[in-house]
């Protein structure tokens, strides 16, 4: 009781003092006491006021970072610890919390990068190894339904595995299968009845991508994606080569990508830019825009615009809505992972995705997409709905 009263009087007196004058000493004392006593809100308010008065030092950033971390605002915690690391790159504690922030935000690259700067002894204690043959496995199953009588409901499934080849280098491999029956070239018989040729279509794919982290915020990637399409009895393959980079600066992110798909139907070059921002509001609302320019053989080109908006809508639960405009045919998305080369182009797409981090090691993904598709042989449209369930399991 007496101890509590003394503590209260101490905080009270220094808070009065702080109101009169904000300087290094008072900021250091108050934030340290708040840190010891778990007064996170007060620590943050004093810290913000000190920063407004141009008082900034490593311990302050670390304490503010820890306060946000305890309050489970990992994005804000990460931002504070990043300021702390600017003061002292060799600070083990800062590196450790940057590692944990990355883990909690699902930003594995960021975590791995900082894990690489932690001492060997600490890494050993935390069971972090330099090479990890199976870093994570992800699986997705996708069922689509449409209102076309000429197209069956497609099914898509994919499994991927990520290997850590070091703290900065990783290799992701994935295999997938797509199947759909397509009615081709209806012809009229002698009695005037239409004859339909039902062609079962399957596509097996293999994707491999190498990613290198230039820094905790900038990554380069390059890879290869093979597609083997079988229409009825006819088989033809396609090769996709892709590369790009992504970078984050504070709340902004920016990226560029380029790819070249070559198959029996032609050659398709794609170049694109992406950018986005995470707003400093509750829920960390973010916007992400992607613009791609595609150039097909014969210099036919078109632009594809995609816009996503997402937010943290609950504890460990993220929701994202998106819209895509443009002719999505032979379009390469998600750093070369998806190749949209179905017979019928998609001309409009909208959808929503839910990410639920059940545990730091497991994420469930649910996705819905509405596609407006155009028949490849005429200008008529049909609609397709897609339901996807996925899981990502980290080891």
């Amino acid at each position, binding site marked *: 009781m007496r101890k509590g009263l003394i503590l209260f009087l101490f905080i009270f007196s220094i808070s009065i003092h702080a109101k009169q004058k904000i*300087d*290094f*000493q008072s900021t250091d004392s108050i934030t340290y006491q708040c840190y010891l006593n778990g007064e996170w809100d007060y620590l943050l308010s004093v810290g913000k006021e000190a920063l407004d008065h*141009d*008082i*900034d*030092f*490593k*311990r302050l950033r670390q304490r503010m970072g820890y306060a946000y971390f305890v309050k489970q605002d990992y994005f804000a915690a990460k931002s504070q610890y990043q300021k702390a690391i*600017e*003061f*002292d*790159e*060799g*600070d083990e504690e800062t590196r450790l919390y940057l590692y944990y922030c990355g883990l909690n935000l699902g930003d594995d690259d960021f975590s791995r990068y900082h894990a690489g700067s932690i*001492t060997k002894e600490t890494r050993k204690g935390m069971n972090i190894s330099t090479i990890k043959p199976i870093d994570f496995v992800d699986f997705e199953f996708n069922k689509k339904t449409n209102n076309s009588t000429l197209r069956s409901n497609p099914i898509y499934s994919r499994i991927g595995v990520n290997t850590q080849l070091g703290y900065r280098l990783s290799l992701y491999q994935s295999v997938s299968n797509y199947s759909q029956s397509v009615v081709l070239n209806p012809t009229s018989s002698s009695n005037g009845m239409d004859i339909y040729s039902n062609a079962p279509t399957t596509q097996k794919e293999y994707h491999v991508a190498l990613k290198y982290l230039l820094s905790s915020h900038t990554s380069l990637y390059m890879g290869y994606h093979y597609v083997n399409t079988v229409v009825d009895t006819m088989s033809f393959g396609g090769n996709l080569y892709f590369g790009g980079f992504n970078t984050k600066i504070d709340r902004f992110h920016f990226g560029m990508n380029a790819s070249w798909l070559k198959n029996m139907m032609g050659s398709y070059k794609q170049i694109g830019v992406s950018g986005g921002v995470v707003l400093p509001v509750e829920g960390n609302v973010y916007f992400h825009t992607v613009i791609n320019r595609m150039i097909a053989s014969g210099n036919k080109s078109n632009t594809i615009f995609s816009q996503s908006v997402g937010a943290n809508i609950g504890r460990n639960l993220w929701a994202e809505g998106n819209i895509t405009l443009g002719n999505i045919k032979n379009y390469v998305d998600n750093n070369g992972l998806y190749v949209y080369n179905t017979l019928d182009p998609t001309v409009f797409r909208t959808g929503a995705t839910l990410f639920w981090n059940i545990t730091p090691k497991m994420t469930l993904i649910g996705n819905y997409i509405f596609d407006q598709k155009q028949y490849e042989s005429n200008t008529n449209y049909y609609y397709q709905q897609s339901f996807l369930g996925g899981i990502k399991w980290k080891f």
Partner: protein
Amino acid sequence: MEILRKTAIAISFAFMLFSAQAQSSAVVQAAFTKSYVSEQAGNYMAAISDLKSVYNVSDYTTNIRLGWLSYLAKQYTESIRYYDIAIKLKPFAIEARFGCVKPLSAIESWEKVKGHYLQILKIDPKNVTANYWLGVIYYNRKDYANAAKLFEINVNLYPLDYDSVIMLAWSRLFQGKQADAKVLFNHALVIRPGDSSALSGMKQLK
């Protein structure tokens, strides 16, 4: 006659200018004197205020002194600001950088401290203080190879400098260079017989 008149005017102007300058120097000197007295009395804020009355942003000495007094008054951001101005005014003066290192160390801005020591070593490659403290930064980061390089320069220049000898000995030990470390720990024990750090190092040798 006209020439004489012009000469007289020129001389008067020169005298006035000299006199104004002398007066201004006297004011500055008085302000510095007051600030020394205030500093001696531990009244750093008063010392700062004494100097601010004659503050001239392009004067190196006033900026250095304000940097130092602000550091003593624990106004680290202000202190760094004054030292930064001084560094810009005299980029080859290492004293401003050594001064700036103090407030930067107080806020644990080790990246900037490291940057200043590296700059000092560019200007004065054998500077013992910069070599030693930069070596300590590397040593604390477990970068023993770079630490040893710097301590070695000091030991070659001052073989009896205990601080550099003992730091080099520990760096060598953590580098796995046991034979070198043994020689250095023994040397440290000659400089400071019974030194606890050297004895502890000797115990760790296999």
